Every structure is written in C-alpha cells, then in structure tokens.
C-alpha cells in the first residue's frame, strides 16, 4: 500500500501558483527526493506534507487517509511525522539527550524506555558519548547527527528533510549524504528529501522528482533521469547536455546533415510533429582525429574552444557546414588544439528525445 500520496496538490499566493497540481506517491519505505532550482516549490511542497502550509487545492493522504485538503488540515503535531530542518533547529536550551528524547516524552513513554531508546539511537549516529552536551558545544556536523537522531527515534510515519546539508562544508556534506542513506537502509523510514543539489539527490534516493516552476517534470530512478530525460528542463538540469533541434521524417531523425533511425533514439516513439528536440550528452560524443570506421553517425568539425577541468577535457566543436556548436568531453590524455580538425561520432542509444 502506498504510504504517502499527493493528489493535485496546489499552493497559490494570489495568482502565483508556487506549487501547481503535484501528483506523487511514495511506497512504504521509499526514499524520494524533490530536486529543483531554488523557487521551484519543493520546500513549499514539503511544508504542506508536514502541515505547516495549507494547500489551496488537492489533497495529501497518509496510509489512505486524507490529512490535508483545503479547509481541513490536520496540524503538524497530529501527523506522526518528523522533520529535519535547514537550520537543524536543535534546541539550545536542552542537552543532546533532551533534544532526542523530546518526541518520545510527548508520546508518554516510560522514562527508562526513553533513556534506552535515546542512548541506542545516539550510538547509531555515533553521538553516544556526547549525550550530556549542550548544542552550543557541538560542531555543525554533530548538530546534524543530533537532528537525525531526534527525527528517527520516534519512528515517524514519514521522515521529511529540508535541505539538511546545505549549511555544511563540502567534505562533511559528502559524509552525511552516505550517513543519511545508511540510516535509511537500516530503518527503512519512508522519506521525502528536498534538495537543490543533484549529487545529493542521486546518492540518497530511490527515486527523484525533478521540480520546475511549481510542477513535477519527471519522477524516476536517478540513472534513468540521466539517461532517459523526458523534458528539456530535466536534460539540462541533471548533468550537462547539448540540446539540438532536429527533424523527424520518414522514421529518421536528422540534424546538422546527419541522420539516424528514430527507433534507436529513446523517447522518439512518442514523438509528435516533425520538429523535435534531442539531448546529446557531451560524454557520449566520441572525438577522433580521423574519420572513424564504426557505423555510427559522424560529423566533421573544428575545435573552437577547450577547457581543462582535471578529470576531463571540455571541448567545444564547431560542426562543418552548419551552425551547430557541440560540447564534447574527452579524457585528460586526449589533447586537441584549438583549430584542429576532428570527427564527432554519435551513439543514438545514448541520446534522448525531449519535449
């Protein structure tokens, strides 16, 4: 049975629909990220799930029961959820143990039981030795662990995370990413995770919902978002890409003077109309000094710009006989000078048609 379900969920401030008819269903134990640029409505969506914001339209159901609908909103404290905030919101007037035990106390558990569960969960997040400390004496990463412990210890129906790592430095962020996923693998709590950092979403999530301008563009497993983007926005937001306008005619897709079988390009089967958009990842373009012998489509061009990024070379190639300028990457040892003639080899399997 689905644990959490959003149906046509909408939040508008005046005429501005910051969240626009969102449909999303989470299975029990699933980890789903809401990923998008700032202002896309992901935090508002999360706060509607938590009960801090009332929806204008649509509804939210938890285990099949409606908990939010216009005019009938269950307050946050009655939802049995827990949340991790951007600012951590660790209460500075309570010790680590008191912070973590707060939710258990509200559930009127016996105090022995509370003490044991608090200690257990603090061991899990490697904070057992700091239980008596006050938050002011903790580092940012340690506060984050307290926030995690406090949210998990109550065994919430749904765990909500609102950009929890954005205040940490880069190294710690990477560490906490794995920590969050590890805790999820251990406790299997249904989780909604809001972030604008795609690496974070990819590392933690079972599925990612990419949001833009209040709408969900696509919901898929991380690798499918990368290899099978369905919209122009997703293709550009997840990784880097070349977006090419192409023509679809007689079962053939053509751009810049080359053509390939439409059946080979994912997404093309649903195409309508003749003018289409194709996403070509820079990594999928092979660069050659001489015309390659493989059977794939090939375009001749000249290196117009190059940038060395350490792990890769980033080339911009001006195709011959057309206006096309394509970005292509190559390993560090494959060096082409600006002005050098190259041949670009395409792999239709790694392209995607987007709308």
């Amino acid at each position, binding site marked *: 049975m689905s644990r959490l379900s959003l149906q046509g969920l909408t939040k508008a401030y005046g005429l501005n629909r910051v969240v626009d008819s969102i449909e999303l269903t989470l299975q*029990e*134990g699933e980890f789903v990220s809401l990923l998008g640029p700032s202002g896309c409505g992901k935090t508002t969506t999360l706060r509607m799930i*938590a*009960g*801090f914001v009332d929806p204008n339209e649509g509804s939210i159901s*938890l*285990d099949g*029961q*409606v*908990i*939010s*609908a216009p*005019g*009938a*909103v*269950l*307050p*946050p*404290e*009655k*939802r*049995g*959820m*827990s*949340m991790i*905030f*951007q*600012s951590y*919101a660790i*209460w*500075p*007037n309570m010790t680590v143990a008191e912070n973590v035990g*707060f*939710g258990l106390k*509200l*559930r009127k558990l016996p105090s022995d039981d509370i003490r044991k569960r608090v200690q257990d969960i603090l061991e899990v997040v490697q904070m057992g030795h700091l239980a008596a400390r006050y938050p002011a004496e903790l580092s940012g990463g340690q506060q984050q662990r307290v926030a995690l412990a*406090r949210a998990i210890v*109550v*065994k*919430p*129906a749904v765990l*909500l995370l609102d950009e929890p790592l954005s205040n940490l430095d880069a190294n710690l962020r990477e560490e906490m990413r794995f920590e969050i996923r590890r805790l999820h693998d*251990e*406790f*299997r*709590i249904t989780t909604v995770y809001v972030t604008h950092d795609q690496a974070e979403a990819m590392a933690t999530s079972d599925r990612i919902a990419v949001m833009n301008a209040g709408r969900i563009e696509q919901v898929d497993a991380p690798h499918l978002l990368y290899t099978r983007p369905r919209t122009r926005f997703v293709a550009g937001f997840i990784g880097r890409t070349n977006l090419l306008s192409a023509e679809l005619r007689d079962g053939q897709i053509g751009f810049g003077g080359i053509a390939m079988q439409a059946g080979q390009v994912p997404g093309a089967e649903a195409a309508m109309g003749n003018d289409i958009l194709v996403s070509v990842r820079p990594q999928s373009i092979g660069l050659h000094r001489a015309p390659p012998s493989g059977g794939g489509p090939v375009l001749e061009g000249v290196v117009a710009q190059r940038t060395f990024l350490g792990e890769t070379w980033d080339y911009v190639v001006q195709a011959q006989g057309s206006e096309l300028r394509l970005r292509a990457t190559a390993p560090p040892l494959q060096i082409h000078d600006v002005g050098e003639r190259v041949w670009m080899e395409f792999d239709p399997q790694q392209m995607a048609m987007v709308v």
Partner: protein
Amino acid sequence: MSEAPALPQGAAQAVPRRLSGRLARFEPVTLLWIALIAILLFLVAFPLGKLLVVSFETRGTGAFTLMNYVSAYGRSRYVDALVNSLILGLVSATMAVVMAVPMAWAVSRTDMPFKGLTWAVVLGAFILPPYLSAVGWILLAGPNSGFLNLAWRWVTGAEGALVNIYSFSGMALVIALNSFPLVFIFVKSALDLVSSEMEDAANILGAGTWTAMRKVSLPLVWPAIVAGFIIVFLEAIALFGTPAIIGIPARINVVTTQLWQFFEYPVRVEVAAAYAMPLLLITAGMIVVQKLMLARKGYVSQTGKGGERRPIKLGPWRWLAFGWCAMVGLMAVIAPLFVLLQASFAKAWGRGLAWDNLTFANYYLLIFEHEMAMTSIWNTIWFSATAATIAVLLALMIAYIVNRRLVPFGEALGFLAMAPFVIPGIVMAIGFYAAYASPPFALYGTATLIILAFAARFLPIAYANSTSAIRAVHPEMEEAARILGSGRLHAIRMVTAPLVKKALLGGWLIVFIVASRELSAAIFLVGPRTRTMSVLLYDLSEAGNFEVLAAFGGLLLLVTMVFVGIGMKLVGRDFMLRRN
C-alpha cells in the same frame, strides 16, 4: 526494523472531512489579534487622537474653534518659548556631539588607556536622571555659592562668578552632559563596524592617522553622528526636568515649562494641546529624517561587514584622548555626583567637607519622618514594575504575531506599538490627561493612569527588545517541536519561552529603570498621594532645601543602582547600552 514503523497512538488521524472546514479558518490567534488592536488603540491612538480633537474644541461646549491656537501662539512670550526650545535643542545637541564623537572614536578605534573607565562614565551619565545632574550643577555653579565660583573668587579675588548655571548656556551644557551617551552609543557601534582596512587604504595612499580619521572613519559614520544629534535634539526639546529646575529660576521659558504653566490653575488643557503640536510634529518629522538617513545605501558602516580590526596606536596622544574622556566624565558624572552626595550628608552644603558638617539627619528625615518620601519610593517601584510588565507582555505578543505572520496586516500592530517612539513624553502625558483625566474615566491622579501612561510611553523600547528576541529564535525551532507532536502553545512554552527569557528580562529592566526616573510624563498625571520619586524630587527642588533634596536624589540613585546591578548580574554588563 523493516516492519511498518509503530505509529504512536493518536498519530495521523484523518481529518473528519468538511466538519471543521469553516472553523479551522478561525484560529484563536485572531481573537488575540483583535484584543491587542483594541488595547493599542486605547493606549496609543485614543490619547493622541483626543489631544488633536481637544485642541480644536471650546472648553465646556466642545464646539469647533481655532481660538486655542490663537491663545497658544498669540503672545510673544509663548512664541519665544518655542524659539528658545529649538535653540536649546540645537546647542545641546552640538555640545553632545562635540563631547561624544572623540570619545567614541577613541574607545572604538584607538589604544587609549582605561577604556573601561570611559564606559563607566558613559553608563553613569546614562543612569543619572537629568534633574539630578541639574541639581548637582546648581551646587557646582550657582552664581553665589556654587563651589566652582567660590573657588574662582578665592583664587582670583574677583567679585563676579566664573560660570552661572542659571543661564541659557548653562542649561544647554547640563542637558548635553546628560545626553551625550546617546551620541556615543550610536557612533561607537557604527565605528565598530568599520574595518581597519578602510583606514589602511587611506594610510597606504599617504594619509596619517589624523587625516584618515577625518577623511575616512568619521565620514563613514556620518549617518550615525546625525542620528545621535537628532536624538539629543529631540530629547532636549522634550525635556522637562532640567528646564524646570534651572530655567524657571533663570526666567528662561521653553516649550515644556510653558506647557507646565498651562496646567497651573485654571488648567487650560485645550491650549496646552494646541501648544504641544509643534513638539509632536517636529519629533515625528525628525524621526522620519533620521530613518531615511540611516537607510541610505552606500555607507559601509551600515552594511555590517566587519573585516579585521586593529586599534590605532596613538603614542603619547593617547593621553590627550584619555584626558578628554576624563574631563567629560568629571563634568557629567563625577563632580555633580560628588557634590550631591556631599550635600546629602551635610548640615549645610555650602560648608563643604568637614567632620562637624557631617550628618545623617537628611536621610533620617526622609526615611522616617517625611510623609511622602517612602510612599513615593514605593509608588515608583510598583508603578514602574507594573508598567514594565504590561509593556513587555504586550510587546512580546505583538512581536510574536508580527514576526510569525500569524495574521494578515500584523504590521498594523507593530506600527501602533512603535508609534509612541515619535511622541514626546510630555505630549503623551497631555494626551492621557485629555483622554482619561475627566469623566467618564475620571482617572486623574490614579495609579492606573500613571501606569498606563508609562506602559504606553515605553512600549516601543519593549517592542524593539521583544522583536529582536523573537527574531533570534528561528521559526524552525518551534516547527521542530510541532512536527514531533507539540501543539503551538506547548511548543512556545517548551522552546521559545526559555530562549527569549533572558532578553525579555533585559527589556523589562530597561523599561523599569527608565520609567522609575521618568518625570515629564508623570508630573502631569500624578495626584498628591500618587507622586513618584521624580515628581517628589522636583517638588523638593521648588522648596529649595538642597540637603534634603540631595539626600532624596541619593535614595533615587540607590534604587536605580539596585536594579541596574540586578540587570548586569542576570543579563550582562552592557545590557543598558546595547543598541537595539
């Protein structure tokens, strides 16, 4: 733990659909909002509105008239008082800036020695009520028997006086010596934000310390200097105590003393209302000017960006800086306080320090025999404490509602709560008199009226304090409690309240302390048995017995110091001088 997480009982019940549909819209907080609006209208808007209305009414009939304005501005004596007030404000503010800016620069930017002493002096001048420093300066520089003039005659053999405090410039000096801490606090906190690199940049281009200060540091804090100037100006024109104690014997009439005269029998409150209008308009206008100045972009000092800060090495000049601070401190606090205390323990203050002049009779008289002294101390404490409690509670609720955006148009509440800031205390008092003194309220002379006036007058202090306290608590702190199962009130009790406790205590103490020395709002509203210490002190000054007067001043300072001490202990040493 892969089974479904055990939900706590009662978690995630579904909302009975439709049932609570309409009721859910109507939160109890809306009722609170309506109640607060009503209280604020009663405390702030009604007295002010009444003041305006009364100024256009004929006494008795209530018919519309402009005669009050004709009476108020029809005599040259009244217009002169207005002009005097403005000049007094300008002169006092200029003097205060001259005193305070070098001190602020020296404390903030240089290696001047004994900065702690300078701080103590500033705090002392801040705590010393204006009417007490006026009394101190009468003892110091009265034309006949003031100590300075006695010394002058003894040294030079001259007949005349070196300084006469009963003069316009004497009055302005006393006001400046009492209000320069306002400029100091403004300018120092602005200078604290100027990075040393600003001066380094000037130095590397060839400017010396002096030039860098003149051309870079001071211009950067120019808005703060002007803001301080404006505040002192407004203080000076609205001040009652000093002009009453020095100006009336010197026959110098200013707006506030003239307003007082309109309240002498027969009370002409409608003329007073008309006469108070310029004070109100000037204050409101200047505050707006000040806000605009401080809001202007382009001054680094207002952006809050710090950077590295090093004290400038003054070399031998640091003793000059210290000398300046010491001189201001001597004149503002040490000398007046010393002569006051001396007089309070003297049989005859003019005889100076001598064993046979020492007596406790003045204190004994006040504490055990005076019919009003102890009552007024008690009045002061409980009026101020009640007013401070009302102001802080009101301010806290308003600040919470406005900051958490719990109701639409919450800003209206905040505006009303801040409005008394632009109303001079003396105008506020006349407004309260006009609104509540006569039937149907008939509150004249009651404790209720004084407490309400104090609460309204100092509401902005409490509101600014509460707002910054509430802002310091991230809303997510409460939300974290709510998502774990707390109701809104429970979350406030468990999380928000403990976090704002200390800041609120500081706000309460500041309101208490300023209320306990407030004279201008009190003097128009007290009755014979509800006199406060400040009013009684003024009455004693009219009687002219300086020894008893000084002893009573000593008692007043003692009460204040007790509460300042409590504040420093519980809230932090700088709690009185913190900006915001």
